């Protein structure tokens, strides 16, 4: 277990297995190479917390929650960076969520997916080769549908 300072949850204890290395950093934050993936039960959101900078944390979401046929097309070099053969290996895909002043207008970035090799604990922010996807895809309506109780 590691003790880390987080932007949203104060100081927490987290399993070392949640530590993910981003060899290339994340665009705009190239010097930050190490993050912890914080999973909260009962929440569709995950947090990617920088291990050294408390104030740096991204909110992530699984894009397949709202785009079932989301096609992840990224460069060969990106796959190599995270040591994944997309035909053989398991990998995780997330979108970075932006929450503006009015949180109801929250969006997900489908164009710059975060792809993680869960075995090797390596991640990358790739740039989707399929540029039909939005950088600011509104997600609240879809989330409502996904998360509202089925009894409604």
């Amino acid at each position, binding site marked *: 277990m590691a003790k880390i300072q987080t932007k949203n949850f104060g100081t927490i204890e987290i399993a070392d297995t949640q530590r993910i290395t981003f060899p290339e950093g994340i665009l705009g934050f190239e010097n930050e190479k190490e993050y912890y993936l914080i999973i909260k039960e009962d929440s569709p959101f995950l947090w990617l917390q920088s291990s050294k900078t408390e104030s*740096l*944390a991204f*909110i992530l979401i699984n894009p397949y929650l709202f785009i079932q046929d989301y096609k992840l097309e990224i460069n060969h070099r*990106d796959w190599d960076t995270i040591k994944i053969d997309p035909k053989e290996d398991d990998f995780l895909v997330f979108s970075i969520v932006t*929450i503006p002043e009015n949180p109801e207008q929250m969006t997900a970035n489908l*164009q710059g997916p975060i792809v993680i090799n869960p075995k090797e604990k390596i991640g990358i922010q790739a740039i989707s080769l399929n540029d039909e996807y939005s950088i600011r895809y509104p997600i*609240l309506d879809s989330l*409502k549908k996904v998360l509202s109780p089925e009894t409604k």
Partner: protein
Amino acid sequence: MLVLSRKMNQSLMIADDIEIIIVDIQKDQIKLGIKAPKDIPIVRKELYEAIKKSNISAVNKKDLPDLATIIQKNTTKK
């Protein structure tokens, strides 16, 4: 920065495996063809910049709202 003049259908090489060809020239737009190995990332700069900007605004907010509450609020609104 190196600046080269090229005409329609002319090309230039970068190292020995990347070729950039002038495919079409319009008044305010040119079309480039790029032959490069598969592992060379090629991306329009605006896209790269837009993703960077989006990342920065994603971490800008100091206090995050209680996301569960927002969703709950919106769900019950229906």
